[in-house]
Every structure is written in structure tokens, then in C-alpha cells.
């Protein structure tokens, strides 16, 4: 069979000592890059490009890919320990990961993140190996109405993220939608809500919002809580610093969920990794027997999004390697790297450069193992970070937040925005507004508006296009169901109560 022989050939390439070395280098760099907010895989790959000119293309792409998916492993570290997303797709991990850390299960959370990343990352590569061409065809069949329906489904998850007050959750969501529309409209070049600042023409950087609303707000809230939040409990003993069997068992579905959701959404060009982690989280919560516990620190709440953002890398490589279409961001730079080496990614890559394609795929199996071995022992080490007294930890969080916000763009303006969002996040906590919906709205709002306008442009104003296309109709139907579910639940509860009273 073609795939089997290709894969064997790939392992022959990937297991050459030089390529193993590059794989290790890439994974190591990726982990470091992921851990540090302010360092992104895209910028790192761009920096290393000149050094790779002289390299053999197989080794080069193996290393760059290692950085790409390695970063997804490291990104959860600061999310769990400090509530600072290490990378944009690690935002969702903050929700339950940080809460687990506060309950003394930081090590368990870090361990689960690593294991979920390994499982889902490997599944993603299996998907890339076995079903790349048909899945690519599936991705191409996705048009703007389907994207719109997908975004609506994502936004409907707000219902699951709002906690006690749905109204406040919706208001947070709307706030997020507004914040993401600040900038320049793609279709008409009309600038919106820029308050006369040319700096805002490009919109607000997602990391600035996420770090401000999560990390800074958490510090301020912690200071308000005062002496009651003196030290985060860190259990002693190696056994307590890693996930226990119960926690792992609870994550069984999450591993599957993260893998499938992440891979499928990763395949879609233009749907970022943050979207896949939100979706996986939402699906996990919807299917859970104890949805109300999400947000308080449940292991599945870490496993699902962390797995999703790793499976996403496997998915994102499908259009890149089978069609030459970059999903955006990091895959775009990898495309440039391939072009610089004289390899042309496109439909003919698999047959014309099997060394590169299968070598890369095989190296990803190896890379995921390497990363698991690299990350798991680091878990107890990192968990020790929380032994620091709060009066040292909080300034460090503020410092890392500044690095994270400044690192990407190098603009002091972004630090000013960070200050503003920190205050916003704190006020939201004080006035009891859930912050996750704001981030959800910010992540999805842009894509949703674009997809809506593209769809209507394509159908020349015909709204029925959303229900005429089957996939879009199904997703929209699901979205409506989810949005109505609180009402349905209340209706059901009233019915049950009525039966109990009469019975």
C-alpha cells in the first residue's frame, strides 16, 4: 500500500542521526518558545530561516515543524501556573488549568496537558498520514456559509461558558465582538472605532487582551483578596505532582474530543488554533456529566483544549503539504521556508518530494514522543514555581505579562492597552461578569463577520444559502439548540418539579 511504503521510507529518512538531531533541536526550541509569552513560533522560525539556508531541506523542515508543534506543548505552562497564555491557542487552558493550580493540582494539570498534547498530537499526525488527501478535499468544500455556521456554533458555546448569569455572559461576548471589530474593515477599508489613533488601524492584538483580562486581572483580584490568598498549596512528593489515575480516567473522552475537533478545525484554512481549543472545550463541557464543575479546575477542561491545539498542527499541515495552501501565520512561514529550499508545496509535493513529505510526517511521530519525554520530567520542576511567596509571584506575573504584550509588536502602545485591559478584567471580576465569553467573542467575532459578508456577497443577498447547504444547516441547527438549551433545561426542571409536586 502506498501509504505504508511511504511511511516506512519516511522513517528511514527521519531516523537518520542528523535528522533526529534536528528534530530534537526543533522540539526543544519549540518548548522554550511556547513557555515564554512574547516569543511565538512564527517569529522564531523567521529568525532561524537564514541559518537553515545551508541545511538539507528534510532536516530543515523537520526542525521547523518541531518548533511549530513543540510550542503547543510549552504554551500550557504559564497558562496553568500563572494564568498567562503562553501562546494564543493556550488561552482556553487558563480556564481550568489555572484553577487546578490554585487547588494544588498544578503538577497534575501540567502532566495532563503534556499527555493530552501527546495523544492528540499523535492522532493528528496519524490523520495527516492516512487521510490527508480526502480531508483536504473536505476542507475545500467548506465555503463561507459553513465557516459562518461554525463560528455561530462556537459563539453559541457562550451559553456553556457564562456561569450563573447568561445575560452577563452575553454582554461580555458582545463586548468581545466590539473589541475585535476595532481596526480596518477588510472589505471596504473603512476604519472602525479607532478613536483617531493610527496605531489602532491594525486592530488590537489578541495576546494583549487575553493577558490583560486573565493575568493582570487575576493579580489585582488576588491582591484584593488579601491575606486569604497567601500561598497556593503545592503538594509535596512526586506522586502528587503528577496526575493520578482518576484524573487520567476522567480525561478519556477529552483525549478523543481534542484529537478529532482539533484536527478537523485545523484543516480549515483561516480557522486558527484558538478556535479549535474553544470548540473542544465547549464540546467537552456539553458532553460532561458535571458541566457546572467546568471553570473550577477539572482535568478534562485542560485535556480537551490542550489536545485540540496539538491536533490542530497536524490538521494545519494537511492543506500546506497536500495543496500548498498555508492556513495562516506559522504555516505561511513554513511555506516560505520550503520555497526557499527550492521545494514547491503543492498537489505534487507528495509524489515529487517524498523524502520531505514522508520524512516530515515520520519525524512528527518521533517528535511527539520526544516532547512527552522532554515535558513530563519538567512538570514537578515547574510546579515548584508556585512555592514562591505571593509577594514575589505577583510582580513576576506582571513582568511576564509586559514581556508577553510587548514581545510580539514592540509597541509601547500595546502596553498601554494592556494596562487598560487589566483594569477591564479586574472590573469584570468585581462586578461578576464571566471573562471567558469576552475572549470567545474576540476570537470568533472577526471571522464570523467576514464569513457572513462573504456568504451574502456570494449568494447575492440570498439568506437561504445558509440553510440550503447541508453542513451549514446542521451546524446552525446545533447552534440554535445549544442557545436554547438553558431554556429547555429550565422548562424540563419546571416539569420535573411539577411532576414531583403532584406525585
Amino acid at each position, binding site marked *: 500500500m502506498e501509504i505504508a511504503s511511504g511511511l516506512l521510507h519516511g522513517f528511514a529518512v527521519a531516523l537518520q542521526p542528523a535528522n533526529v538531531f534536528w528534530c530534537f533541536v526543533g522540539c526543544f526550541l519549540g518548548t522554550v518558545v511556547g513557555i515564554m509569552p512574547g516569543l511565538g513560533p512564527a517569529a522564531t*522560525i523567521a529568525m532561524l530561516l537564514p541559518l537553515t539556508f545551508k541545511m538539507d531541506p528534510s532536516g530543515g523542515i523537520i526542525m521547523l515543524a518541531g518548533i511549530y508543534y513543540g510550542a503547543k506543548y510549552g504554551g500550557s505552562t504559564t497558562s496553568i501556573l500563572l494564568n498567562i497564555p503562553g501562546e494564543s491557542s493556550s488561552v482556553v487552558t487558563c480556564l481550568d488549568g489555572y484553577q487546578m493550580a490554585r487547588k494544588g493540582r498544578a503538577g497534575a494539570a501540567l502532566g495532563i496537558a503534556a499527555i493530552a498534547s501527546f495523544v492528540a498530537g499523535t492522532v493528528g499526525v496519524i490523520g495527516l498520514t492516512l487521510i490527508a488527501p480526502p480531508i483536504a478535499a473536505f476542507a475545500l468544500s467548506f465555503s*463561507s456559509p459553513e465557516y459562518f455556521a461554525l463560528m455561530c456554533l462556537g459563539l453559541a458555546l457562550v451559553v456553556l461558558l457564562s456561569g450563573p448569569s447568561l445575560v452577563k455572559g452575553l454582554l461580555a461576548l458582545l463586548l468581545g465582538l466590539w473589541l475585535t471589530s476595532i481596526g*480596518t474593515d477588510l*472589505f471596504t477599508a473603512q476604519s472602525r472605532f479607532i478613536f483617531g*489613533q*493610527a496605531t489602532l488601524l491594525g486592530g488590537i492584538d489578541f495576546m494583549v487582551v487575553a493577558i490583560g483580562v486573565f493575568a493582570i486581572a487575576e493579580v489585582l483580584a488576588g491582591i484584593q483578596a488579601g491575606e486569604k490568598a497567601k500561598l497556593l498549596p503545592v503538594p509535596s512528593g512526586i506522586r502528587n505532582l503528577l496526575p493520578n489515575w482518576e484524573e487520567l480516567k476522567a480525561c478519556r473522552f477529552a483525549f478523543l474530543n481534542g484529537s478529532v475537533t482539533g484536527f478537523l478545525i485545523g484543516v480549515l484554512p*483561516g480557522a486558527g488554533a484558538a478556535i479549535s481549543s474553544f470548540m473542544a472545550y465547549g464540546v467537552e463541557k456539553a458532553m460532561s456529566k458535571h458541566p457546572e464543575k467546568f471553570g473550577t479546575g477539572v482535568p478534562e477542561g485542560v485535556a480537551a483544549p490542550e489536545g485540540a491545539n496539538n491536533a490542530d498542527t497536524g490538521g494545519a499541515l494537511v492543506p500546506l503539504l497536500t*495543496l500548498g*495552501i498555508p492556513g495562516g501565520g506559522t504555516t505561511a512561514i513554513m511555506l516560505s521556508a520550503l*520555497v526557499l529550499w527550492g521545494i514547491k508545496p503543492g498537489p505534487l509535493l507528495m509524489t515529487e518530494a517524498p523524502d520531505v513529505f514522508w520524512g516530515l510526517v515520520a519525524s512528527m511521530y518521533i517528535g511527539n514522543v520526544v516532547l512527552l519525554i522532554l515535558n513530563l520530567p519538567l512538570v514537578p520542576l515547574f510546579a515548584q514555581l508556585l512555592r514562591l511567596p505571593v509577594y514575589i509571584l505577583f510582580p513576576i506575573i506582571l513582568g511576564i505579562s509586559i514581556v508577553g504584550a510587548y514581545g510580539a509588536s514592540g509597541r509601547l502602545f500595546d502596553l498601554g492597552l494592556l494596562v487598560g485591559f487589566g483594569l477591564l478584567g479586574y472590573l469584570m471580576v468585581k462586578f461578576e461578569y464571566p471573562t471567558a465569553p469576552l475572549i470567545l467573542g474576540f476570537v470568533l467575532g472577526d471571522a464570523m463577520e467576514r464569513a457572513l459578508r462573504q456568504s451574502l456577497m456570494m449568494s447575492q443577498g440570498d439568506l437561504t444559502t445558509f440553510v440550503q447547504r447541508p453542513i451549514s444547516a446542521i451546524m446552525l441547527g446545533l447552534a440554535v439548540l445549544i442557545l436554547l438549551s438553558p431554556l429547555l433545561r429550565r422548562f424540563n426542571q419546571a416539569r420535573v418539579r411539577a411532576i414531583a409536586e403532584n406525585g
Partner: protein
Amino acid sequence: MNRRHVLAGAASVVTAAALNPAWAQFKPTRPVEFVVHGGPGSGNDVFARALIAIIDQEKLSPVRLQVANKPGGGSTTASAYVMSKRGDPNVIACFTNAWITDTLVQEAANNRIVDMSPIVRLVVEPALVVVRADSQIKSMADFINAAKEKPGALKMSGGSITSRENVVRQLLMQSTGARWAFISFPGGGERIAALLGGHVDMMIVDPSEAGEQVRAGKLRPVAQVNDRRLPGFPDIPTLKEAGFDIPNVPQMRGIVGAPGMPADAVAYYEDLFQKVTKTTAWQKFITDNQLDGEFVKTAELKPFLNKFEGQLRDILKEAGAKVVR
């Protein structure tokens, strides 16, 4: 030594200095900032790094050139940054059409490239008009006729309203009377995916982006947007050859310096980049990337840019964009 020899020697030195002012005067002593309006890995970033690689390889500069990424708001962050470095001979930037179109449509983008120190234009980026390989459309005329039959029904994918694709679309629609829709997508990958998936009918795209699809037989080019045929596509007619005589509004990349840059520094950079274009590495670069190396020197660049700005202003107004400047 004979006095006449001394005088001759002195005269030749003075003449050489007068003929080649760059040689006599400016030489950078600090690393040069090469400003780029995209993030790492973006088109401009890769272009700038390729230039720097050639300069390093051929040892054309005594100091390092370093890419300074200033992404944000299209070109506005980068142009504002360059504008803030008045008189600095160590700040240059890579400019594209966006540096002009942004100032035309954004109220807040008030740093015009003609107010800085334009140095040279390095390349012009041709484009291909492509359709799916299984489409009924076999030539540009087919497309235009189909569009005339059903106004507004055909669709093309592209970037924003100010992008080159839309400019060409406007010019074609004006000259032929046909009408078709323009669907904006933020990334090149999505645009090609939309075409491959059959959700749009045509797109105007860089040869480097679509080349592989064409080679694999998934997309068919029906025309080229350029003055002359690209070596990689000898059988595809240019728009003019296909009978569509629209003005050439090229997508270009060039080098601009900080405003008020001293004339000898400008001359130095002009000379530096001219030397780059004479190297074999450069020739290989533009062939590999399907670019057209139409070099424009400093003296001709400023008037060209002024005229170009006027052209774009008219086209964008016609396209319905809100032109503010």
C-alpha cells in the same frame, strides 16, 4: 613626481568624486535598519531578508542590514516609524503599493511616501488570471462574456478593496462594461481554497502562489497581468495581447529612505541596490519568484510615484472606496 601627473591625478579624483558622489562621501557606520511593514515571514519580510542575504553574500555593504518588523494597520505603523526618523541616513524601508493606497483611504494614515526619500524601485509583481482547470472558461474573453451575460453573478476572490486584484478588476470592468463580484479574504491560502473549492470562479494571483496548482493541473491561467510575458508562462497571453488594453498599474516593491535623508546617503543606497540587481543571485531570485526586475532609479522614481498616486486615487474612487486624500 611630475607636477603634471599630480595635477592629472588630482583632476581624476575630483572628476570621479563628481561623477560618483556616493563613492566619495556617505558610508554607513552603524547597522542599517531595514523597515518592513509585515511580521516575520510575511511577503515583505521574506523579500527584505532575501535582499540582505544577497548583500551579505556579495559583501556589498560595510555594515549589517537588519530587518525591523513594524507590522500593524497595513503599512501605517511602518510608514509612521520611517517618518519619525527624519534625517537619519541609517533607516530605509521596503515599500509596496500599500504604502500609497493606505494613505489614500485612511484618514489616520498621513505619512505619504512622496514626503519621504524614495530611493529605487526594484521589482514589479506580475499576476496571473486563473480559473479552475475544469471550468468552461478557456480565455479572458470567455470570462468577460460570461460576466456580461450575468452581471454580478460571477465572483472572484482577492484581498481588500484597495488590493491590486480589485484595481485590475475595476479597470477591466470599466473598459468592458462587464460586472462581477469581488469577495475579500484576508489570507492567500483562503483565496486559493475558495477558487479550488469552486466557491468563486476566478482569481488574479501572484504566480508564486498559484504556480504549483497550475503545474499540477488544478488551475488554468487565462491571461497575465504584465507588460511582457513571464518566462515561466510563455503560452499565456498578456491582457493587452488578449485584447484588453487597460493602463498598467503595477504592484511594485522598492526602497524608500527616511524623510530628509541627505542626498549622498540616498545616492549610496541607490548605488548599493543597483549593484544587487547586477548579481547572479538576484537574477536567480527574481526568476525563482516569477518577478519582473524593472529597475527605476531615484531621479525617475519620485515623479513616477506622484503619477501613480493620482492613478490609484481615481481608480479607488471609481471602485467605491472612501478616498480621503
